């Protein structure tokens, strides 16, 4: 599923970043790499962007960016 479709509190494993190389490279250096654990922390008061916790860091992305990142949802019990 797309990262942008995850709900607050859910976490998952990042599968792929389908964005231009320049962008995905930048995101990769912030931890957005296949296999990374990502958690949806909170949404901005206006509902977008959303703050994600990845690799121990909090990064905010707009929906338009997060739409192009796919994740596999972690088991419903929650890994964290």
């Amino acid at each position, binding site marked *: 599923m797309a990262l942008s479709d995850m709900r607050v509190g859910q976490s998952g494993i990042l599968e792929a970043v389908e*964005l*231009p190389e*320049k*962008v995905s*490279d*930048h*995101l*990769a*250096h*912030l*931890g957005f*790499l*296949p296999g990374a654990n990502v958690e949806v922390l*909170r949404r*901005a*008061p*206006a*509902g*977008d*962007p959303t*703050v994600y*916790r990845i*690799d*121990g*860091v*909090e*990064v*905010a*992305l*707009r929906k*338009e*960016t997060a739409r192009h990142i796919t994740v596999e949802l972690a088991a419903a019990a929650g890994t964290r």
Partner: protein
Amino acid sequence: MDCCTPTSSVAIAEAPVESSGSPSNGSRSRTGRIRTIALIGPPNCGKSTLFNRLTGMRQKVANYPGVTVEHHSGTMKSFGRPDLTLIDLPGIYSLATYSEDARVAVDVLKGNMHGVPAPDAVLLVLDCMHLNRQLMLAAPILSLGLPTLVLLNMSDLLEARGGKIDSLALAHELGHPVALISAAKGTGMDLIRNFLQQFGEFPLTRPGSARLPILQSPASCRKWASQVSTRSQFEEPDSPLWTRRLDAVLLHRIWGPIIFVVVVVAVFQVVFSIGQPLSDGMGNVLTHAGAWASNALPDNWIRALLRDGVWNGVQAVLVFLPQILLLFLFIGILEDSGYLARAALIADRVMRAIGLNGKAFIPLLSAYACAVPAIMATRTIENKRERMATILIAPFMTCSARLPIYTLIIAAFIPDRYILGHILGLRASVMLGLYALGFLAALVTARLLNSRVMKASSAPFVLELPQYRWPTPRSLVLRLYDRGKLFTKKAGTIILACTFVVWLLSVLPVHGGNFSALSSSVIAHIGRFIAPVLHPLGFDWKIGIGLLSSIVAREVIVGTLGTLYGVDPATHAASLQTALHHDLTMGGAIALVVFFAFAMQCTSTLAIVRRETNSWKWPAIQFAYMTVVAYVGALVTNQLFLHFF
């Protein structure tokens, strides 16, 4: 200045000898002493704090040739090593040369940057709280083969939060010495001193480790980084509890925006209620000092030159300082504490509507006080194109220098009565309208830029939310000193030159040893020459001179008009307000303030745009564009009045 607290508990973790058993002797061998050291690290690793600590006030700021990247360097005199120069490189994630910042870093590190000596050693700063990720930069840097000391910054926080790292094991993995430091607290500085001392004494032939990944794809770098940190017994610190708790309130759906508005209003209240009087007071003091000094001088052309040509320029520069410094103090507190990123997150939705991102909000807001600090504050916007867009629209915001002419015209032409029953004063609503007009111009310009310039770059909005921290007075003071010096030195010289030229044009030609009166000077000739162009706007040649002289600074027009009407026998007895009625119709008067709402009548802003973009191209485009908009705006206003009222 005392800057270092010696800590004996942590020793420098020396790289073991066996890790340097790679082909080394053919590579760089340095027998001499080290002189130049490069400081490098990813963004948010605390590099600037360390740079400030190592160099103190002895910093030089310049731009690298041809790019907008700033070049900070300084001698390490306050660190007891006046023989060493430290170069602060831009914060980068990798050496992949997509970005201007990374290109500059690569060029400097390889000694290919014109005018910058090749570094003899490297200090690589990494935030050890996020070692897995930060280590990704270590591979490309260490493989350059320069003697490098790896500094694990924020080690105090790591320990406090229950994290762990075996620096000896890490040094073994990297093949380079590793030191645990805290730039904010000043711990571990003696380790850096030891490193520099050691390499100053014997020849340097320290090669990069053979085990560093040659592949520089982020995925391979990351894999390597994780392996290295695992083998170095790295344990992540607990998640920052206080940051989570604070964010639950500061980014709350309801409280978040409310607190945001309160913070913004409070900052502006202070800037206006303290900064404005400070600026005014400064202006008064300078005016009196100038008057006092000129009385002491003999009445000749030198006095006129010093008083009107030079001193007025100095004044034009210095009156801005209190507001600039005050704004920067607040921006500094917001940025260092970590709130600025949250503000950007809250403002993003609104800013997106005009094609910008949340990081442009605070700079644009600052522009309501003064465009100069606003443009300087755009440095927090990493995306170069969005930064440029913000710089281009910031001067449309109604800055405080527009207020003198606004209040003069409104007081002279707008009747003091109420509209809409007794709710809104007519004068207040005209003032409000002028603010709205400037905002509208910024909005339309941003839209225009968005469709023309920005389309090509689809750089997404990526915002790292740092942990909350207490801003340190030391770093705030250094920042204020840095910005204040930059403004007075770099912008000041340009402003001074412009003031001087305008003054020269207003006193030339010389008749029999005397200067011309303003009305017969070169500038008056130019004013009369351009009068036909200004006629459709409802302006006569006097207003024309006012417009020309106010290119130095907007508020200058009030003084110029005062001088012009003062020497005119028809109006000299009247107050400026009544005198204006002599020459301006209602349409012309409104057209004049509309002109000022749009026009770029400010050398300080032009100078700072030149400084920040490192080219004359942008200030030139900006000046031309804003003047055209101002002309058309004033023309439409006057013609509307002529035909409909």
